């Protein structure tokens, strides 16, 4: 049972106690127990615990379960610190050897090491995948036990909140967030401080705060990783935002396909309540706030903010016209602030270190870092965090290790069904909100799917159209009918039954759907088609008999 914290002094005392508690000369074995479960991480973790116990190594070795460590391609993954060795594809059978050789004798087991061009690289600090990244928002992910708030607090967790509560007026917090240049990570890139300011100014006795954890874009898993690996960062960000805008109640809308994320979030909320970081009179500040989890019921369109609101209210998740924006009239017609998981996870850092510190990362158009979910035909699929303005080439080749099987890079799909494909000629594009738009894709939430020369781009365009056509809520004609008709044309083209006029028709329909649809889903649904026509017209033409 955790002791309730009555003041900032109590928090400081707890942090010191936690630091002391984790200061030890034990060897720590960090086992990823989230995404890696898909390849048997639980068994590996269990075996480590068992072996450490039966061999009587408890005062020498500590086994820690963590969130995603990034290099998910090598699942199940683990690190041993000291000396900072990374092992992948670990199996239950390799556990005894890891203990006897690596942990007890300091010897490296070659076959478990990460390799690049045939060379084994045992230490994390030498692996390009790690040393080319800048882990800022993900600083805790893969390093702490996400279910143990003491780990989070030992690493300065909730310090930013304390600064917000005791040293800044609500307007001061908003100013700080504005100055930091933080923009929404959910896809739109709207300045976060400005949004908070709107909700703060809206007059109402009741206001709400909502965290959008619907993460519907296929190919995206950043929000999942944050919630699973460092849930308190999101909780802390939400409490801070709530205090700044004057909300006393918050919701996290999580998709149902993320049971581990829901579980870890439940842990975090429960612990925060015990510590008096949620509930009445938080840390003795007089501020009251509580959080609740709402599980999604499976509808992509519910990631759109007005649909999400309808869904929390227990209705069909249909978007409605804006204005009024949720900042003025949101949940139950009250002013509501909605931000994405990653956006909230940035907040504690800005509060802790200030906006000037934060601005050292990134570009003029987008400060801070961005987390990308690297998937598809790339060697190191996984979770990547880099400063805004990093080029696609650095992400795909330097960090991602390039394309497997000696194939050629063809395109990177960015922004999911509302984004587009960036071809090889734009590999040196520094990625930020504006530059990506110029090449017809969008930054989106951070899903990055690499496609090699064998991928048919027309087929990918068809695939996305099928997705949006199924997910269209049907409320407005241009989207409901437009996506259906475009899908028919694309299906015909892929099957080799298309004609020349089809490409022109597609473009026309794409523009109508873009311009006449009610919500973001319809407005962006044609993007994958348009970007494919723009960069891969030849492939369309080749399909026409």
């Amino acid at each position, binding site marked *: 049972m955790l002791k309730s914290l009555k003041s900032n002094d109590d928090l400081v005392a707890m942090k010191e106690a936690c630091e002391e508690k984790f200061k030890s000369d034990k060897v720590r074995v960090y086992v990823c127990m989230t995404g890696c479960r898909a390849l048997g991480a639980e068994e590996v973790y269990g075996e480590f615990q068992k072996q450490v116990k039966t061999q009587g190594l408890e005062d020498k070795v500590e086994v820690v379960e963590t969130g995603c460590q990034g290099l998910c391609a090598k*699942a199940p993954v683990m690190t041993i610190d000291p000396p900072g060795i990374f092992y992948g594809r670990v199996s239950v059978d390799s556990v005894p050897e890891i203990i006897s050789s690596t942990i007890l004798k300091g010897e490296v087991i070659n076959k478990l090491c990460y390799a690049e061009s045939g060379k084994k690289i045992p230490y994390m600090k030498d692996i390009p995948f790690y040393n080319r990244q800048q882990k800022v928002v993900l600083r805790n992910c893969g390093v702490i036990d996400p279910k143990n708030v003491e780990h989070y607090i030992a690493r300065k967790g909730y310090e930013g909140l304390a600064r917000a509560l005791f040293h800044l007026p609500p307007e001061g917090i908003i100013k700080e967030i504005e100055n930091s240049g933080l923009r929404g990570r959910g896809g739109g890139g709207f300045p976060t401080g400005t949004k908070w300011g709107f909700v703060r100014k809206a007059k109402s006795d009741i206001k709400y705060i909502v965290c959008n954890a619907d993460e519907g874009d296929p190919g995206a*898993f950043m929000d999942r990783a944050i919630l699973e690996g460092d849930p308190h960062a999101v909780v802390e960000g939400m409490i801070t935002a709530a205090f700044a805008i004057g909300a006393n109640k918050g919701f996290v809308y999580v998709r149902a396909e993320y049971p581990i994320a829901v579980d870890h979030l439940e842990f975090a909320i429960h612990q925060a309540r015990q510590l008096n970081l949620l509930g009445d009179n938080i840390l003795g500040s007089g501020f009251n706030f509580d959080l609740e989890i709402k599980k999604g019921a499976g509808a992509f369109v519910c990631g759109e903010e007005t649909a999400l609101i309808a869904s929390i209210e227990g209705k069909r*998740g249909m978007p409605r016209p804006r204005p009024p924006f949720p900042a003025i009239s949101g949940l139950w017609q009250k002013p509501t602030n909605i931000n994405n998981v990653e956006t909230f996870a940035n907040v504690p850092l800005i509060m802790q270190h200030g906006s000037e510190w934060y601005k050292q990362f990134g570009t003029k158009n987008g400060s801070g870092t961005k987390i990308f979910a690297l998937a*598809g035909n790339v060697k190191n*699929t996984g979770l990547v965090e880099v400063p805004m303005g990093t080029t696609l080439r650095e992400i795909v080749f330097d960090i991602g290790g390039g394309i497997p099987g000696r194939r050629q890079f063809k395109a990177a799909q960015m922004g999911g069904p509302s984004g587009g494909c960036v071809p090889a000629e734009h590999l040196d594009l520094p990625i930020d909100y504006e530059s990506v738009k110029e090449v017809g894709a969008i930054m989106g939430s951070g899903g990055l799917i690499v496609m090699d020369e064998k991928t048919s781009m027309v087929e990918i365009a068809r695939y996305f159209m099928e997705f949006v056509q199924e997910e269209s809520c049907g409320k407005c004609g241009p989207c409901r009918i437009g996506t259906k008709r475009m899908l028919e044309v694309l299906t015909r083209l892929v099957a080799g039954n298309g004609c020349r006029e089809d490409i022109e028709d597609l473009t026309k329909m794409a523009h109508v759907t873009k311009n006449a649809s009610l919500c973001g889903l319809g407005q962006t649904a044609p993007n994958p088609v348009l970007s494919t026509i723009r960069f891969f017209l030849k492939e369309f033409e080749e399909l026409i008999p």
Partner: protein
Amino acid sequence: MEGKESNKQVIDMSCVRDIVSKFADRDDPNLISVLQQAQDEYGYLPKSVLKEISSVMDIPLTRIFGVVTFYSQFTLTPRGRHSIKVCSGTACHVKGAEGVKQKLRDELQINEGETTPDYQFTLETVACIGTCFLAPVMMVDERYYGKLTADKTSDIVGTYSNKKLGSE
């Protein structure tokens, strides 16, 4: 089936009331949460249960139907003991999810959206389960499985079929 259903109905309704009453003293009597818990309880949403929810919560049945049919999570027909959700998201698509889907169809002798006659498995597709780094992937109940091949897929399905024999 018929007998079972009517037999169950007596117990059913008290469960529904319990679920609804959990939300009763709140300012948002959330229909979706009630439906999710009811479906957890029964495995699907029988019409009798929806009628009961309608009368206890005082929400028109048409509205409840509107909500149930909007979200892919809800089902009006009984499901299998295990739900298999195979990912058809972009990353899985690029990495050969179609082969996995075909294997599942062959193995279970059903199509997506269907349930095996013995009510052991329901097969569904889902557009990404956030495990794209190990594509192609699927989820059985709440467990993730990655880097699937046709052989691996049938092995996994096999372990669930065996469990059934073992536990009953």
